[in-house]
């Protein structure tokens, strides 16, 4: 406890100092752009990675790996290949170029200026304000779950403690992106996770040996979840089974693809000096995501062996954690890793949560002030936009804390991976609603304003409908389907070939529909003015 307290104090002191320096002397985004001041690409990549990876990835998806197994490594692959390589190499420089050309500073503003539509700015900003609190809520929840187990206090107390800490940090340092502070958080995360991964493998006699032991333990999980398609932690679930659909459509596809249209990440491309910096950041980013997500997933799956080999527990992780999937990683680290590593990991997770939450509130504050208030109301408003930004942050913060408080109470003991599900829902919504107009806007001249709007609305409406009435995991909790139709999902157990409709993630239906509508409507509606398109698609210089 003493060591932990000292670590936390040092961490907070250093973060506070960096935030103060950022406040006093440097401005992350703009400083970086100003010639003559070099920020090393390692710093840029670590800060991006810190915003990308949160407690949700470590605690939430690590817990999912402990239950569903290493098929989740496909998500790790997509996180590296799509979330870093494609994002930086393909989307990054175009986003930066068009963002600067059109003088856009937020994600909604970028889309609005690209399509010359204030409606788009309002729509995207409102969706961010309404749904991002779910994501920030589960990030808070992931950290609080760890604090709960590590300090042996109640979840509510842990949540209150952590939310207060975040509020204080934001109040003192502001949300001004302090790239060095983010990079430090990223560095802490990298070292913490790498140590945990090495220790986990070492305790099981090496890499192949550990995997083999997990393979040998598989009959135990097949006994519990085999009827739903589980084939062991080191095998993919049966094709078309319930678990296959959850793992592949929601976790792997939803999160792996959804990362491309994350508002809080897309804006970061605009703050780099040239394409060269993005190329350089790919090097560090790839390794960072490999260690953080791969480490969390492998550790999660292997935790089963630690729980099972403990004579006092002698059970797999899911049962040992009383079916609370979000408690698996915290319990594993607290019970089976040396105390000092648990303490270091405590700070690691704080860093992971803090950096992501800050980037989320940055996006939400900007959406409230710049996009909704300044964009829609403009000079007619009575308040200064600073007031609106603060109010926006306060309200979304309270919404996030409320969700982090309510969700575990509502879903206690249901075996729900709340943190991972919350993240997947948000990522899926972003992909289905924003991706066609964002990626299309960067690369295709023919997409029209109407195409973009109708595509986004289609993606959003289908996602919302599917979540409420079809996708069992959410519809059975939201209860509207039950209220109106007397059953938790309107499709029941219907199956068409390998498609088990109630388990198909909304994204699988909503994203293709959104792309088709965007293209079709664009083909039949008035294109944007040629001079505007010429400005957007003028040859990129760097």
């Amino acid at each position, binding site marked *: 406890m003493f060591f932990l307290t000292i670590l936390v104090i040092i961490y907070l002191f250093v973060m506070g100092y960096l935030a103060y320096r950022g406040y006093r002397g440097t401005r992350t*985004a703009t400083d970086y*752009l100003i010639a003559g001041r070099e920020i090393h690409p390692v710093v840029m990549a670590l800060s991006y990675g810190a915003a990308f990876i949160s407690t949700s990835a470590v605690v939430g998806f690590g817990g999912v790996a402990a239950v569903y197994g290493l098929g989740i490594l496909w998500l790790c692959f997509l996180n*590296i290949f799509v979330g*870093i390589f494609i994002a930086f190499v393909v989307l990054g420089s175009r986003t930066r170029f068009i963002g600067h050309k059109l003088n856009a500073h937020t994600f909604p503003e970028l889309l609005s200026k690209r399509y010359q539509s204030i409606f788009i700015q309002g729509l995207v900003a409102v969706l961010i304000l309404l749904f991002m609190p779910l994501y920030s809520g589960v990030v808070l929840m992931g950290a609080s779950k760890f604090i709960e187990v590590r300090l042996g206090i109640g979840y509510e107390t842990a949540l209150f403690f952590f939310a207060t800490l975040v509020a204080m940090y934001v109040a003192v340092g502001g949300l001004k992106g302090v790239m060095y502070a983010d990079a430090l958080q990223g560095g802490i995360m990298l070292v913490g996770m790498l140590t945990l991964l090495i220790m986990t493998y070492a305790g099981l006699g090496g890499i192949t040996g550990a995997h083999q032991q997990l*393979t040998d333990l598989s009959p135990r999980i097949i006994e519990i979840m085999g009827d739903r398609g589980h084939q062991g932690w080191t095998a993919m679930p049966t094709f078309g089974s319930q678990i296959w659909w959850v793992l592949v459509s929601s976790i792997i596809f939803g999160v792996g693809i959804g990362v491309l249209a994350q508002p809080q990440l897309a804006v970061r491309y605009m703050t780099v000096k*040239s394409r060269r910096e993005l190329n350089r950041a790919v*090097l560090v980013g790839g*390794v960072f995501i*490999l260690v953080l997500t791969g480490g969390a997933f492998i550790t999660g799956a292997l935790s089963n062996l630690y729980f099972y080999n403990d004579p006092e527990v002698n059970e797999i992780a899911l049962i040992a954690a009383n079916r609370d999937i979000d408690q698996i990683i915290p319990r594993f680290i607290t019970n089976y890793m040396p105390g000092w590593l648990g303490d270091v990991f405590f700070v690691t997770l704080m860093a992971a949560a803090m950096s992501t939450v800050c980037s989320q509130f940055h996006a939400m504050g900007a959406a409230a002030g710049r996009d909704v208030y300044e964009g829609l109301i403009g000079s007619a408003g009575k308040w200064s936009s600073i007031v609106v930004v603060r109010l926006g942050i306060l309200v979304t913060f309270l919404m996030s804390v409320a969700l982090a408080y309510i969700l575990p109470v509502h879903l206690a003991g249901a075996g729900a991976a709340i943190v991972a599900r919350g993240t997947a829902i948000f990522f899926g919504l972003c992909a289905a609603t924003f991706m066609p107009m964002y990626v299309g806007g960067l690369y295709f001249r023919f997409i029209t304003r109407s195409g973009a709007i109708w595509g986004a609305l289609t993606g959003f409406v289908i996602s919302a409908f599917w979540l409420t009435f079809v996708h069992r995991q959410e519809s059975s909790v939201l209860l509207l389907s039950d209220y109106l139709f007397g059953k938790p999902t309107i499709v029941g157990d219907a199956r068409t070939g390998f498609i088990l409709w109630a388990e198909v993630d909304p994204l699988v239906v909503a994203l293709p529909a959104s792309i088709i509508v965007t293209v079709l409507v664009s083909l039949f509606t008035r294109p944007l003015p040629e001079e505007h398109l010429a400005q957007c698609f003028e040859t990129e210089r760097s």
Partner: protein
Amino acid sequence: MTLGFADPWITLAFLLCLGSAALCVIYGYLNWNSGGDAPEKPSPEDEAWIHEEEELEDEL
């Protein structure tokens, strides 16, 4: 080589994780200096962007 996994799809995913991270490292290394040097002075467009970004950052 199955690396102790029961299913080649998992072995493939494991190797693809390492492979894609290696791709990032190789790409970053080979393109370390490509993509254009940062200009000595930002262009007028970039100047305008920086100015407005600073205002937004101040609000936050």
